Each structure stands twice: as structure tokens, then as C-alpha cells.
């Protein structure tokens, strides 16, 4: 077993409270911008079979270019991957990408809303907006991961989740292609974990195994 895996495994050893936080989680949210694209691609395509939570991904992308990342991932990944549509009901094991040019919000009934209001931090979709909305509905039952990016969108959102006692993971700025975004978040609040890319993969595996074992 690699060092990373041991580190992550420790989180779910008997007596460690993190285990309970995983078991009660309702959703995983992932945010990234410049330089995080490949990593998100790998995380989603390596997502374990029967991943026990819905996953929402917010990446900054231009509205001028049509991208087919969701289609490619849908064929590569074991999970169902799609661009979020309005009124989509979150289902475990499904991955929802925020469409370009819309913010993505979560309703109290677990359905998604698209929002065309002003960009936040020059971004639409904005990571802050989705993270805050998800935390408003699920409070401490949120697991958030913030990756590489070139602006500080996401820092406020992940710290909001942290304040609501959600579980927060930030990519180690040293392994991020662009360190601005994770660094802004680390400067702002104390995340539960700061992980390298490899550790993030093991984290997802451990998370999945812990929840599936418990249910």
C-alpha cells in the first residue's frame, strides 16, 4: 500500500469521527478552473463503480466553445455523466456538470436549478455559488473538493461549507497546475484535508468504500 493510501485509510479507522461524516454525506461537489481540467477528467473517469453519492462538478469554461467533456466521460466512466439540466433530481452515482453560462443551484427537494444571473468573480458558472447553495440545503452533509484554478472563485464557497461543518478537501497547491485557487482557499480557512493528486484518487476510493460498507 502506498503512503497516500495509508494516510487516507487512517481517516476511516475505528474511532475516527471522519467515518461518520462520510456515512452521513449526501453529495460531493468538485470545483476547478484553469489547470484542473485533466484532474477532474481523471477523478470522474476513475470513479469507483456504484459510487454512493451524487457528484456535482463546476468547472469554469467559455460559453463560446462547445465542449463534449461530459459525453466523453460518460463513455469512459462507470458513472452516468451529464450536463446538468434544470429540474434534474440528484441520484447517487450520477455526475452532473454545471453547463457553461449558467450558475447551478440546488433546491431543498434535491433537484437542480439553472440560474442566469450575474457572473460571480467573473465566472458563470461560479464555484462559490454552487458550493453555497449545496451547503444551504445539506449543511454538514456535504463533501467539497477544490482543485487548481487561476482565480479565487471557490475559496468563499468551500469555506462556507467548512463553516457549516461540511467535509472539505483542497488540492495541494504544490501539485496544482495553477495554485491561485487552492491557495486562496487555504489562506481563508482550515480545510479538513490538503491532498496531492494521487491522494485525491485514494480519497474518492476510501469515501466510496466506507459509505458502501456502511449501507
Amino acid at each position, binding site marked *: 500500500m502506498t503512503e497516500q493510501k495509508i494516510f487516507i485509510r487512517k481517516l476511516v479507522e475505528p474511532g475516527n469521527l471522519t467515518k461518520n461524516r462520510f456515512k452521513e454525506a449526501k453529495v460531493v461537489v468538485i470545483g476547478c478552473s484553469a489547470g484542473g481540467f485533466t484532474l477532474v477528467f481523471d477523478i470522474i473517469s476513475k470513479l469507483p463503480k456504484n459510487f454512493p453519492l451524487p457528484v456535482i462538478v463546476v468547472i469554469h469554461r467559455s460559453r463560446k466553445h462547445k465542449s463534449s467533456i461530459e459525453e466523453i466521460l460518460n463513455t469512459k466512466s462507470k458513472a452516468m455523466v451529464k450536463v446538468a439540466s434544470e429540474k434534474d433530481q440528484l441520484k447517487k452515482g450520477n455526475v452532473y456538470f454545471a453547463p457553461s453560462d449558467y450558475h447551478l443551484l440546488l433546491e431543498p427537494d434535491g433537484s437542480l436549478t439553472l440560474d*442566469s444571473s450575474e457572473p460571480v468573480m467573473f465566472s458563470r458558472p461560479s464555484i462559490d455559488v454552487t458550493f453555497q447553495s449545496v451547503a444551504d440545503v445539506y449543511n454538514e452533509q456535504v463533501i467539497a473538493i477544490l482543485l487548481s484554478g487561476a482565480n479565487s472563485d471557490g475559496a468563499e464557497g468551500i469555506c462556507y461549507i467548512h463553516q457549516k461543518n461540511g467535509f472539505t478537501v483542497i488540492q495541494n497547491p504544490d501539485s496544482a497546475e495553477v495554485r491561485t485557487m487552492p491557495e486562496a482557499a487555504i489562506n481563508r480557512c482550515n480545510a479538513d484535508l490538503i491532498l496531492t493528486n494521487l491522494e485525491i484518487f485514494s480519497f474518492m476510493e476510501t469515501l466510496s468504500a466506507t459509505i458502501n460498507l456502511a449501507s
Partner: protein
Amino acid sequence: MKDTVTDVISFEQIEELIEWVNKIHGFDFSGYSRASLKRRITRIMQLQQLSMYELKSLLVNNAAFFEEFLIEVTVNVTEMFRDPSFFRGVREKVLPYLSSFQRIKVWNAGCSTGEELYSFAILLDQENLYNRSFLYGTDINRNVLNTAKKGIYNLKLMKQYSENYMLSGASGSLSDYYVAKYDAATIVNNLRKNILFSVHNLVSDGVFNEFQLISCRNVMIYFDVELQSKVINLFYESLCPLGFLCLGSKESLRSTELSKKFKVIDRAENIYQKIG
């Protein structure tokens, strides 16, 4: 131990406020997205440092504040020629049909500050259809309609709008349709003569005319399923036979039973024609 934040306004309090606003002002927000309302109302309360109690008393005692509240809780972001491919679709697939009508009446529902309605006016003008067209822009909010009526926009925005305009495949230049002065761009008078802006609430108001084209984009994304079908029904009733309905790029008729009464003209751009 870290502090846990308490919400500025909880979902329960949102419900309370919806009831309150309906009782006092006759505006029914019960079909609106709670996530969006929460976000918008939180912002008002934070900016103006209002408690729930203060917000409620302002809503009762201050009519001007309610107009301001309406602006803030509804989303008024719009652009000229937003989604250029949509306008290309209208030009190529809808206008040839429309030209066979003697009078072309257009309704832009939820028009906000008017940019989209003026875009339609330009489109009609370019196909020499403007002189037999009449365009109605409606919104629930008086203040945004006043901006729409003035037709004066920030000149800086025209750069983005011109780019949209080019991408939509329009000929000439967007600057043919506005006069630039200082940092303002004013829509030319010729384009405004067949346009009327007025208040209309999609939730509570009914059919007021018969239209050849209705455009309502990025409005119904904030409505629940029930309200969406109600509004689509209103549009159906307001369209002439073979009239067109345009929705936003992420909206569609798929889930409503009325979809059987419409034909898809452009799947990607969500343009429909009434057939039933």
C-alpha cells in the same frame, strides 16, 4: 472549535416571506425556485443589513422598497443577441414563415431591460419586416421597463453585443441601430416606433393579445414544474395557429403535456411552432 454559521434567512423563513408578500402585495412567488429566492433575499439582507423583522416591516410600510425588492429577487440579466446561434435560428427558420403573415406581433415575456426585444426588432428590420411588426415587452417590474423604454445602454456593453451580433450572422453593424454619445448608446428612434413595454405578471395575468411569435428565455428556469406548465399554456393560448415559441437554451417543452401541440423547429435552440 470553529463557529457554525447560521443562515441569514432559512428556507422556512422564505416560505413565511412568500406568504407575506402575497398577502400584502398580491405577488405570488410560491412557484419560484427556493434556491434562487434564498440566494437573492440573502443578498438584499446582507447588503442592507436587514433582519427578517426589518425586511418584513419595510415590505409592509414602504412601497418603493417593494419595487426594489422585486428587482433584486428576480433575475434581470440580459444581453443584446444573447446566444447568437439562437438568433441565427430565428433568422433562418422562423422569419421566412413569419413573412407570410400580414401583421407580425411579437411578445417578449420577461423582457427585463429590453435588450432582447430590441434584438428582435433589429432582426425584423433586416428582413424588411419591421414596418408590419409590433413588439410587446412585458415584465413584472416597472423599474426595468423604464430602462427598456429609454433604450439607453452603457456603451461599453456594445462591444460584447456587437460580437454577438456578428456571430448571429446579421449583416451590417450593430452601430447602425444606436447613437453613441459620451458613454451611452441610445437605440435609434426608427427602431422604437413599433414597440410597447408594459407590466404583465406571468403568474397571475392572462392572455392580452394574439401573437405570431412569443419569446420567453431564461425566465421559466426559475419556475417549478407546475408554474412552467401554466405559463406554457398561457403562451399556447396567446399564439395564433402556426405561431412560434422561443425558449432559453436550457429550457424545453419535453416534460409538459402541451409539447404534443407544438412542433420542434430547432431542437438545439428550443424554437417551437404551435400546431395543435
